[in-house]
């Protein structure tokens, strides 16, 4: 569970001071997919950085699994990120002259995963994004979509419980972007991981369980998360639609229509 408590972050000093986040509060249960939505400069990326411990707000707490990571020493935060979090960025940030293997193995090296386990983990991550055949290829030879899939493989190779994605499809066309989104959501679902997507794409945001709208550093609205931070029960019809049970879906829809007519 991620608890954000009264986070405030200011950039600059005195007359140049800029309030990037202003008393932000919410709670994200484990395994939830959350979209942080807002215009450019609204503070959504700053919020992501604060949630991941990359940035330290002046006020507030980021409590993950009961521990306020903002009170940890830098090395502990680094180790925390290496073992529990990962990132996907709009610009991929892959090393073009390295092989796909060398790109993906980086988080395992940082987390000091034993050498004997690395190969299997890299292969599994590349298989998850359907890049198994590219393991020895140079990353520079991949297409844009493949590069982002490689970035996803790098992000998931250490099986993080929290995955941050900052405009993950921003540099991709809609078809390729859709494929990348599927990989992300599939990982979150299969691994019960928390996926936090920073985006200004409403379609991508709609795919998430919850949406947090940020305007000028303040939370304007939160949907999909209740006051205690729990994801509300999905409507029965939505569940049935996901499960593909058409007969049950039709029956439920008729029942609801009848109730509304009454």
């Amino acid at each position, binding site marked *: 569970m991620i608890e954000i408590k009264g986070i405030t972050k200011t950039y600059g000093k005195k007359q140049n001071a800029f309030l990037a986040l202003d008393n932000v509060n919410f709670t994200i249960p484990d395994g939830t997919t959350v979209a942080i939505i807002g215009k450019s400069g609204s503070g959504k990326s700053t919020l992501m*950085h604060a949630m*991941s411990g*990359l*940035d330290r707000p002046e006020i507030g707490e980021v409590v993950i699994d009961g521990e306020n990571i903002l009170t940890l020493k*830098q*090395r502990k935060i*680094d*180790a*925390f*990120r*290496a*073992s529990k*979090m*990962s*990132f996907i*960025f709009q*610009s991929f*940030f892959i*090393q073009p*002259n*390295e092989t796909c293997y*060398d790109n993906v193995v*980086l*988080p395992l*090296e*940082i*987390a*000091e995963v034993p050498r004997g386990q690395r190969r299997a983990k890299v292969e599994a991550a590349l298989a998850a994004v359907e890049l198994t055949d590219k393991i020895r290829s140079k990353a520079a030879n991949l297409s844009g979509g493949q590069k982002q899939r490689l970035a996803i493989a790098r992000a998931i190779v250490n099986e993080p419980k929290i995955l941050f994605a900052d405009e993950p499809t921003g540099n991709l066309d809609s078809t390729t972007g859709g494929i990348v989104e599927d990989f992300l959501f599939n990982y979150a679902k299969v691994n019960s991981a928390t996926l936090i997507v920073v985006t200004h794409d409403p379609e991508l945001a709609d795919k998430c369980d919850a949406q947090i709208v940020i305007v000028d550093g303040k939370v304007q609205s939160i949907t999909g998360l209740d006051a205690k931070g729990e994801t509300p029960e999905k409507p029965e019809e939505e569940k049935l639609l996901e499960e593909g049970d058409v007969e049950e879906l039709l029956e439920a829809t008729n029942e609801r229509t009848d109730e509304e007519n009454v």
Partner: protein
Amino acid sequence: MKISDSIRRAGRSLRQAKARTLLTSLAIGVGAFTITLSLAGGQGGREYTDAIVKANTDVNEVAVTKKMPVSTSIQEYSADGGGTTDGFGGSFPTITNADIEGMLKIDGVESVTPNYAPAVNYVTAEGQKKYVATISEFSPSVTLDYAAGSVKGDLKSGEIVLTEDYVDVLGFGSAENAIGKKVEVNTTKLSTSYAPVPETKDFIFTVKGVSSASGLAFRSQGSMLISGDQAKEIYTYINEGTPVYGKFILASVRVADANRAEEIKGVLDGKGYDAQTAADVLGTVNTFINVLLGILLGFGALAVLTSVFGIINTQYISVLERTQQIGLMKALGMSARDVGRLFKYEAAWVGFLGGAIGSGLAFIVGTIANPFITDALDLGNIYLLKFEPMQIAIVVIGLMLISVAAGIFPARKASRLDPIEALRTE
């Protein structure tokens, strides 16, 4: 991140910028080349001088002369010369039999042999012209390089070691052919009174060996060797009855234990003698070599110093170019210390490559050049450039450490980068 992973990743990063890595390494390589060659030259030079000293001196021998009196006042004349001998336009303090007796009483002295250095007029062989020559005493403990024949133990009376230079002029044709042949050495007896026809005497020797005109043998070169007893016999014939008889410029003190040579030198010094051990001779030559070595190492150090700035520049640019990568690594949980270490290891790799390239080239060039140098300088069987694996290893490791030191500043910059700012960098 584990150190082994950091080292491997640093190596991979360098491979991605092959040309730049190679050029920076070459800059260090120039220093490594100079330093390795200098050290090889120094090592070879020392071994060469060591060989020369072994070939020309005896570690058990201490060469002794009487100290030259240093006086600013006018000295009163003494009829007996006061232990001095005249000659060469001056007066020299000499060693007398009394001195020799005194030296023999010093603890650890085995024997004292005056340097007879008999002056001869010429040397010739049957049917050949007469040639000017010098004669010295043979020392069994000095290693000679023989062109033909050899002497086991000491020379016997009537035997001579000829120098290679005289083989042709004395009509022997070859060094091998000279062995067993007779040579004639002519001397003139000194007289205290004028004689219209000075008395001369021929001494006949059988050639026992021919010393090689090697670069090692400066003592034997141009000087034929005869036994000590025969040198004394010729000296006695020449000088007996004259005022200089029994007075010697130089004497050779033989010590029982070579390790005590320095100690006995000190005792002799206290008794008014100048003494020089084999170590002194070696030390003097080695001092000269060390000065030369120091100059060459200085050039090498300058080259390394220049390359240090090259490493700083290259690594600094590398940090700037890889700002996003650093940001990503930090976002993924790499600590600032590990980021800094990554760049220091990259610098170490550059140092290793530079050291290996420079030292390797020096080894190849030196190995190829050695026979030519030996031939050109007439060094016999000795190679002037002597490569020691340990020295090369020290050069490479030293350059790696220097490179790491040069990489500290860029590494610190990398480790202090703010990951958020780094990721935002275009």
